C-alpha cells in the first residue's frame, strides 16, 4: 500500500486532537488549532476535514454525554488511529527529507 501524505491542515487537525488528549472534543480541537496557528479556522473547513480524515480511517470518535450544564446535545470525543499516527509520521518524514539541506536557502 502506498503511503498517504496529509495536507497541512489535516496534519494540524490530527496534532490538535493528540494534544487535547481526553479533552479532544470538536470545539476544543478547533480552538487548539486557532490558538497554536494564531488564526481563525472556518467551521466548514474544519468539519469537512474531520469527515475526510474519518473516511480515510485516520480518526475515530465516540459519542459522549455532555457533562457541562451549558450543553445537552451529544458530544464527540475524537481519537487518532494507528493509521492516522502512521500517516502523520510519513508526512513529517517526507517533509524532513525535503527540508534537509534547505535550511540555509529558505531561511537565508
Amino acid at each position: 500500500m502506498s503511503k498517504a501524505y496529509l495536507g497541512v491542515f489535516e496534519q494540524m487537525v490530527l496534532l490538535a486532537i493528540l494534544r487535547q488528549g481526553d479533552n479532544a472534543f470538536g470545539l476544543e480541537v478547533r480552538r487548539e488549532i486557532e490558538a497554536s496557528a494564531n488564526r481563525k479556522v472556518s467551521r466548514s473547513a474544519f468539519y469537512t476535514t474531520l469527515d475526510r480524515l474519518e473516511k480515510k480511517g485516520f480518526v475515530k470518535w465516540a459519542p459522549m454525554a455532555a457533562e457541562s450544564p451549558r450543553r445537552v446535545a451529544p458530544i464527540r470525543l475524537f481519537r487518532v488511529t494507528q493509521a492516522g499516527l502512521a500517516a502523520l509520521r510519513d508526512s513529517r518524514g517526507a517533509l524532513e527529507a525535503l527540508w534537509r539541506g534547505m535550511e540555509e536557502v529558505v531561511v537565508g
Partner: protein
Amino acid sequence: MSPRGPSPRGVPTPPRLAEFFLRLALPAGVVGESIKGDLDQEFVEYLARNSVLRARAWYVLETLRFGTRYGRRRLNGWVRSRPSDVRRSGDPIMSVFWQELRYAVRRLVRSPLFSIVAVVTLAIGIGANTAIFSLVNGILLKPLPFDEPDQLVGVWHTAPGLGFDDVNQSPALHFTYLDEGRSFSEIGMWDNGTASVTGLDEPEEAEIMEVTEGTFRALRLQPVLGRGFSAEDDSPGTPLTVILSYDYWQTRFGGDPAVLGRTLNVESRSREIIGVMGADARFLHFDPAFYLPFRFDRSEIAVGNFSYQGLARLAPGVTLAQANADMARMLPMAVDKFPGGITHEIMEQAQFGPNARPLKTDVVGDVGEVLWVLLGTVGMILLIACANVANLFLVRAEGREKEMAVRTAMGAGRARIAREFLTESLLLGGLGGLSAIILAYGGLELLRSLGPAELPRLADATLDWQVLLFTLAISLFSGVFFGMFPILKYRRGALVGALKEGGRGGSAGREKHQVRNTLVVVQMALALLLLVGSGLMIRSFQALRNVDPGFRNGEEVLLVRLSIPGAQVEDPVEVTQTHQLIAQRIGQIPGVTSVGSSTSVTIDGWDSNDPVYVEEFPVPEGQIPDIRRMKWVSDSYFETMQIPVLAGRALEWRDSHELNKVVMVTENFAREYWDSPADAVGKRIATGLTPGNWYEIVGVSGNVRDDGLDQDPTAVVYWPMMLRNVWAAMPGETDEVVVHRSLYYAIRSARVGSPEFFAEVREAIWAVNPNLPLAGIRGLDELLDRSMARTSFSLIMLGIAAAVALVLGVVGIYGVISYIVSRRTRELGVRLALGANAGDVRRMVLKQGLILSGTGVLIGLGAAIGLTRLMGALLYGVDPVDPVTFGSVAVSLTVVALLASYIPAARAASIDPVEAIRSEL
C-alpha cells in the same frame, strides 16, 4: 422535540428558523447533533458577553455561512460519488432514478444563477399558495374542533316580513325547543359579554360567556377539573356557580387543583368555582375567562327578546331540513306556552320562520369570499411564476440544442431526453416547494402576530399534512408544467432541424419564439388582472375613507366602558349620580374638553333594536312597526362625539334625573316621516309591546353609520340612560325606574394617546369608586379601522400579490426581449452595417415589446371584465368594471413593460456591426 432538550425557562435560545436551516445542511444522527451542539455551546458563550439580539444575529450569520458551505460540500461529495456506489445498493429502477437525480443536481449546481432564480420564483408562487391554502383549509374546510361537528347547528330564525334575514334565539323559543323538540339531541343557548371581577388583583372587566346547562353537552365539552353546569346551577334561587377557562385558572389561580370550592367575586357577588375547562376547549371563536349559567326564570319570560345565540346538536340521522320543519312546528306552541309577548298574528305578519344552519357558518362568517378570491389570486401568481421558469428553462434547453441533437442522432431515445428534462424540472419544483414551506411558515407567523380581526379560527390555520400535501401537489404540478415545454418543443424532428441550422449558433426562427411569446403574453394578462384587482381594492379603500361615519376627529377621543353592578350600587338613582360624578371628575382632568357617555357609541358593533311607534303614523292593530336601533345616553354625548345636533336640543343629565319622557332621533329617522329635522321636534314616539307610552322628540342629530362604513346610515333613537321601564306590559315586568348601568365613556382631549393621560382618567374613576373595572379601552378611530378591517386586509393581500405579479411579469418580458436581442445579434449587426441607424433598431425591438405587452394587456382587460365581478362583495363605492382603474392599470403596465424592453433595445442599438458579424461567423 429538539434534541437540545428542554432549555431552562427564560434562557434565550437560537432562532428556530436558523436551527431548521442548519439541520437541513447537517447529517442526521450523532454527527449532525454534535456539530450543532458545538455551535449551540458557542452561542451560549457568546450570549454571556453580548446582548440577546447580537447573539441571535451572530447565530444566524454563522449558520448561513457554515450551513451553506458545509451543506454544499456534502452535496458535492454525493454528486461526485461514482454511480457504482449507488447501483450496488439497490434495485435497478431506483438506481436509474438516483443517477438521473445526481446528473440533474450536477447540471443545476453548474448554473447557480439559473437555479437560484428558478427556485426563488417558484418558492414565491408555491409559498403564497401554501400560505393562503392553509388559511382556506384551517378556516373554511376543516371541521370545527368538536366531536362529530357535522351535527352541530346554529339555531336561528328569520322574519322576512320585518326585513330581517337573521333573527337570533329567544329564551322562550329555547325552552320550547328543549321541551317539545324531536330533532335535537342537545340544545343550548349562549351569549358573550363582560363582567367585573373584584377581590383578586386590580378590579377587572373580564370577557365572559353565559350559557344554559345544555350548551357544553351539545358541544360535548367536558371540564378537566370538577363538573359541568347542571339543571340546578341553571335555575334561579340556587347557589351561584362559575366554571373557569384553563387560561384564567392558570393566570389567576396559578393552576391550583384545589381551586374547586373556592369563590370568585363576579359583579360583586361571590360564586362557587365548580369546574375548569380544558386548555384546548375553545368556545367557537370566543376566548372567555369564565362561564356563568343563565338561570332564566321560566315564569317571567315571553316570546321576544331575541338577543341570545342558539346552538344545538342534531339527533343521529336527522337532517337540517327536518330540524327546520320541527322548529316550524314548535313556533306556534311557544306563543301559547309563553304568552304575553309576540302574538300569533304578529308572527304571521313577520313571516317568522326557523333558520337552523351549520354552526360553522356562524363561526366563519363572511370571510369565505375574501379567502376564495385570495386563493384565486395566488393561483394566478403561481401560473405567472411557472411561466417565468418555463421561459428560463426553454432558454437553457436551447443552449443544449446541439448536444441533444448530436445525442439523438447517435441513438439516444426521446424518452431518455424527456426524462432528463423532467427530472430537472421536478427537482426545481421540489426545491421550490421546500423553500415555499419556509416562506409560508414565516408568512403565517407574521399574519398571526398581526392577528387581523377579519380572520376567525386563525389558530386552526397551520401547515398540517393536508396543506403539505397541497404544497407537494402544486410543486409536482409546477415541475411537470414547465418541464413539458422543452419536451414538447424538442420532438425528434425539431432537433434534427436544430442540428442543420445549429452550425452557426441558431438565429432563432419565428416559430421558435412562439411558445415563449405566448408565455409572456399570458404573464402580462395575469399581471394586469391582479393589478386591476388590487386597484379596485385601493379605490374601495379610498371610498371607505371618504365616508363620513357621523362623528368627527375621532383621533382625539378615548373610549372607556364602565359598568356599575347591581350588587355594588342597587339604587338606579345612585347609579346615575355615580356616573355623573365620574363624568365630572374626568372633565376636570387638564386638557379634557368634554365627556359624554352612551350605552354604545357609533360603529362599536353593539346593537339593540326594538319596534318604534310614531304617534302621527299609527300602524294597524296587531302589526309591528319598524324595528329601530336604540342607544341610551347621558349628557354631552353628541358634543363629545362631535355629532351635530340639527334641530332642537341634546339629551342632558336632567332628563335622566327628572325621568323626562324625551328622546332624540337621527336625521334619517326624522326625514322618513317629516320634511325636515325641525319638523320632527315636538312629535312623539314610543316603544314596547303596544303604542301609548309616548316620548317627545326634543332633538334631531346628524346621521351615523352605526352598522359600518360600508352600510347606509342607521336610523337611531336615543333615550335617556335612566327612565321608566318601557316594557312594563310584558309578563313579569313593572314600570319601575330602570337605569343603564354599563356606559361607554367618550372623552375628548388633545392628550389622548399618552399613557399619563390614561393613568389620570383611571385615577379620576377610582377616586369615585375604586372597585370599578375599566373595559373596552380604545381610541374612537380604532372603531373605524375595525370597520375597515376586511377591506384593508383584502387590500394588503391583493396588493402584495399584484406587486409580485408585476415584478415577475416585468422580469419575464425583459428576459424574453433580451433573449431575442441576443439571438438576433448577427441579424441586427447586418442591418446596422447595411445602414440602418440605431434609432430604427431600437424602435424595432421596442415594437416587439409593445406587441407582446399590448396583447397581454388586451387579453387581461377582457378577462378582468369577466372576473372582477367575482370580487363584487369586497368592493365598496366602485364599479367592478371601473374605467379609471382599468385604464390607468393598462396604461401603467404597458409603460412599465416598455421600460423593461428599453434596456435590451438600447443594447441592440449599440451593437458594433463588425464585432457582431465576426463573432457569429
